[in-house]
């Protein structure tokens, strides 16, 4: 009974939050609703007994949305509404309904045809995090390592792109030197 109540509560909350994210004109509402929705999703993992994934969901998405906030802070005056070119509200409803039906159809298909079997059934007496480790380092070792290499490439690229002039700090140098550099930047 508790699981059913919790499921419907969090399903409702998640959908409301993402609805606000899509429809609101206020950047802060959108970002906050996005973060809240992502955190509410973790509740489903907890209900299903996948504690580790639930916590990872919380940690990863609070960090990710935090980066979005940083961008929001730089690009918008967050206390004002963002004026968007809105074609039609019907479009939003139509598209989201279509997407929802599509997703439900994809997930329901194997259940309807009774073809659902676990490739890696739960190992008894082993913790949640150990089970993920088992699957990650046997079946999915190659995708896991490839993802690691891609992240490494992204990190190196980020450092190369952002790392120019990183060895000098405007706050640490003399006032005059900093002035000249700012002047040069303005001219170029």
């Amino acid at each position: 009974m508790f699981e059913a109540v919790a499921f419907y509560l969090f399903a409702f909350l998640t959908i409301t939050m993402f609805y606000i994210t899509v429809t609101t004109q206020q950047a802060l509402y959108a970002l906050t609703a996005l973060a809240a929705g992502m955190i509410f999703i973790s509740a489903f993992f907890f209900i299903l007994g996948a504690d580790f994934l639930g916590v990872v969901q919380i940690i990863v998405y609070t960090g990710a949305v935090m980066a979005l906030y940083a961008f929001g802070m730089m690009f918008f005056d967050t206390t004002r509404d963002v004026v968007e070119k809105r074609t039609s509200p019907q479009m939003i409803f139509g598209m989201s309904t279509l997407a929802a039906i599509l997703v439900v159809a994809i997930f329901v298909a194997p259940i309807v045809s009774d073809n659902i079997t676990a490739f890696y059934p739960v190992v008894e007496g082993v913790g949640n995090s150990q089970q993920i480790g088992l699957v990650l380092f046997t079946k999915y070792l190659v995708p896991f390592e490839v993802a690691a290499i891609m992240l490494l490439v992204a990190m190196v690229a980020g450092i190369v792109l952002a790392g120019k002039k990183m060895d000098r700090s405007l706050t640490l140098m003399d006032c005059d030197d900093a002035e000249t550099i700012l002047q040069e930047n303005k001219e170029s």
Partner: protein
Amino acid sequence: MDTAFIIETIVKIVVILLIFSALAGIGTYFERKILAFMQRRLGPMYVGPFGLLQVAADGVKLFTKEDIIPTGVVAKIFKIAPVITAATAFMAAAAIPFLPTFTVFGYTVHPIVADINVGVLYVLGVMAIGLYGPLLGGLASANKFALISTARAASVFISYEVITGLSLLAPLMMVGSFSLIDFNNYQVDNGWLLFSQPLAFILFWIAAFAETGRTPFHLVANDHELIDGFGTEYSGMRWGLFFIGEYANMFFISFVMALLFCGGFGDGSVAGALALLGKVAFFFFVFLWVRAAWPDIRPDQLMWLCWKVLMPLAVINIVITGFVMMF
């Protein structure tokens, strides 16, 4: 799931809420007294014996103050931001065992709300959400100083999270579980992790200062600008909620440090329980001591410290621990 379990859980939640809300108030008393002692002042001394009732006076003041929502703020976000800080601080406490299991009138009490098997991760993850409070409060405030302090909060957030995660990895590898109770039991058999993982302990301790936003990483509230950073526009109980959240976080992170690295409650005897409280009191005292002894550092210094000094150290620690465990 029987009724007794539900009632027990609700009672536990209420007790934790009450105790730690009260402790947040008493914590401010100790903070003032200790700071005053270190700065050769007297601190609170007029209200009640030794100024003890100052806490109650402050409480009355906070609760009865007018709740002002300034014009030009994003009202809903402005109102909800302090609630996020306070609520997530207490949510994080759900996976912390505050005392060893004890028996009252023949009824065994587990002083932990939920012993989930990813306890450490849960506590740190939910605590991290608490930083959304200052962030949202500052962004919604329509105040330039609040906005600047929000930018600092973001810089703190992206710096310390990596250190907490990486510094914990090495002890986690040794214990092989995320549960705080398993950490405690491991240390009963094998000695404190503080001695086998001293580097991880120090890194985690430094990160804890950033996590709770205490001096020397007190960047979210700009003390040197003589305002309260993200809290500039807040008044009354909404500001009080930020306060309760910050102090509750300090207590909870002290519990986590004592449980992770300093043996926790040991074998579960009364002496062990008292020792746990003593360790927590010590860590709390160090939070105050550091505030009296050190100035704040700049955001760029914090990022330099976290990314260029502490992160490589944490990675080296993990590699060494891995090799030692393998061979």
